[in-house]
């Protein structure tokens, strides 16, 4: 079977997924991802013409609730696990010069 992904594709999707990969990892992933994608391609055998995609497993209407504030004012809780904060904000490396 043809290889679904080459090394350039691995690098492109790793970039999209925001995961740094080393050269050795990219090489290994090329084979692993191709193997999995080749295997799932067997779905092409299934005739799905006119079949609707499944959107929910059990028929139910999505619940609604009154549009009221029921939670909030918990900035300390929200920030409690942040790796870096400043004045009750999340702190990140400089984005704009």
């Amino acid at each position, binding site marked *: 079977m043809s290889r679904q992904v080459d090394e350039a594709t691995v690098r492109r999707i790793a970039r999209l997924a925001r995961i740094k990969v080393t050269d050795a990892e990219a090489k290994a992933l090329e084979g692993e991802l191709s193997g999995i994608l080749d295997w799932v391609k067997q779905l092409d055998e299934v005739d799905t013409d006119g079949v609707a995609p499944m959107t*929910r497993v059990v028929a139910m209407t999505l619940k609604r609730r009154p549009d009221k504030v029921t939670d909030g004012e918990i900035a300390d809780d929200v920030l409690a696990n942040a790796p870096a904060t400043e004045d009750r904000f999340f702190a990140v490396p400089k984005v704009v010069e």
Partner: protein
Amino acid sequence: MSDLSKLTLADARAGLRAKKFSATELTEALLAAIEAGNRSLNAYVLPTPEIALRQAGASDARLAKGEARALEGLPLGIKDLYCTKGVRTTACSNILDGFTPTYESTVTQNLWDAGAVMLGKLNNDEFAMGSSNETSCFGPVASPWRRKGSNVALVPGGSSGGSAAAVAADLCLAATATDTGGSIRQPAAITGTVGIKPTYGRCSRWGIVAFASSLDQAGPIAKSVRDAAIMLRHMASADPKDSTCADLPVPDYEAEVGKSIKGLKVGVPKEYRIDGMPREIEDLWQQGIAWLKAAGATIHDVSLPHTKYALPAYYIVAPAECSSNLARYDGVRYGLRKPGKDLIDTYEETRAAGFGPEVRRRVLIGTYVLSAGYYDAYYLKAQKVRTLIKRDFDEAFAKVDVLLTPATPGPAFGVGEVSGDPLQMYLNDIFTVTVNMAGLPGIAVPGGLSSEGTPLGLQLIGKPFDEPTLFRAGQVIEDAAGRFAPPDRWWDARKGT
């Protein structure tokens, strides 16, 4: 006093109510079992003895006043996928290093509201991605079971490997678990425990670390069918915080245990007889059929023609949803941060350092199948196949009440024996994954021992929200097969004393 840790949940409940022992004594017995066994098994990633003893003390006060709630004083283990307020929760991933939730998951809150006691957080595959508990950042769990005459460490299955091992080794009375493709039923089956994945929407997903949101469901692993019924009743609830959680009353599942199955129509799907399936799995299946028949059920051949496509469809849907869900781990709001030269570089360094190889693989597969130009060919195609899988079940359930299948294609394998080949590992879920794809309830019940002396399980699959039938039929199997405990308590440091 005999070792209280070996009691079932139901027997411990009866003992507490009859004041044969206190919740504190019971909890101390379990904590001692953890202390003596966890070094070998690695089932707990964080025991919480102070919390357990505080809760047990409060339970004793309630028991004394005659104000016991349904699970008063019963010590449980909690899979590390459940957020527990003030107690480190990592999903066994380095990327959630040190994460301490400021809130409690709905399911665990339900358990504490019913009086249960928390012994600690249990090991699992990283983000519940795995079938052997080998992808955990805390290292693998050893099954308490070993092959006859062998010291080779066996896996307890996964992803709820810590839950299954802790229950099988009496390090808790019962445990919470989660199941996205088989993560409750496969470990239960290969450790001789009972595990039920309820219907999608039966338990709230709120506060459980997300893997694949259209497949994830909470459920228990327990020592007996009755114990699983007790647990599920108090885990399940309607929940305004989870829009996919069903607004249905929770039945008294325990009341089903022991009821007759006379006249129950049991379907046997021929597509579950796969090439290369070991003879002993086929024999176990036939034995299960004979047991249900002897109890008054009628047996019917049914066909689920799209069964073989469930696993490949799953390996599109689950990675796609995981790549979306795991986008939140960016090193900004919680968990690990590995500083890079700019913000994008910080994201990339953080995610490379924080995710293990299997999680990375699935995020990349998911990113690929959702990327521009591929969505229709992969994700949309898989969701259409999912409709066909569901339709197969609907047609079968027009004729029968419940389905009986093997739970796994084989017994427990050794640590490291399968981990080199992702596709080989994925095949472990071949009999369980269909149930998640269709959103149905499934229970794994011990059926016997393999030629290697290790457990094998049977699976019952029910109609949506028909867990009651699964508990009824499950008890029939348990009555016929018996319960199974590891013959040698090799992990117990107190052994021989």
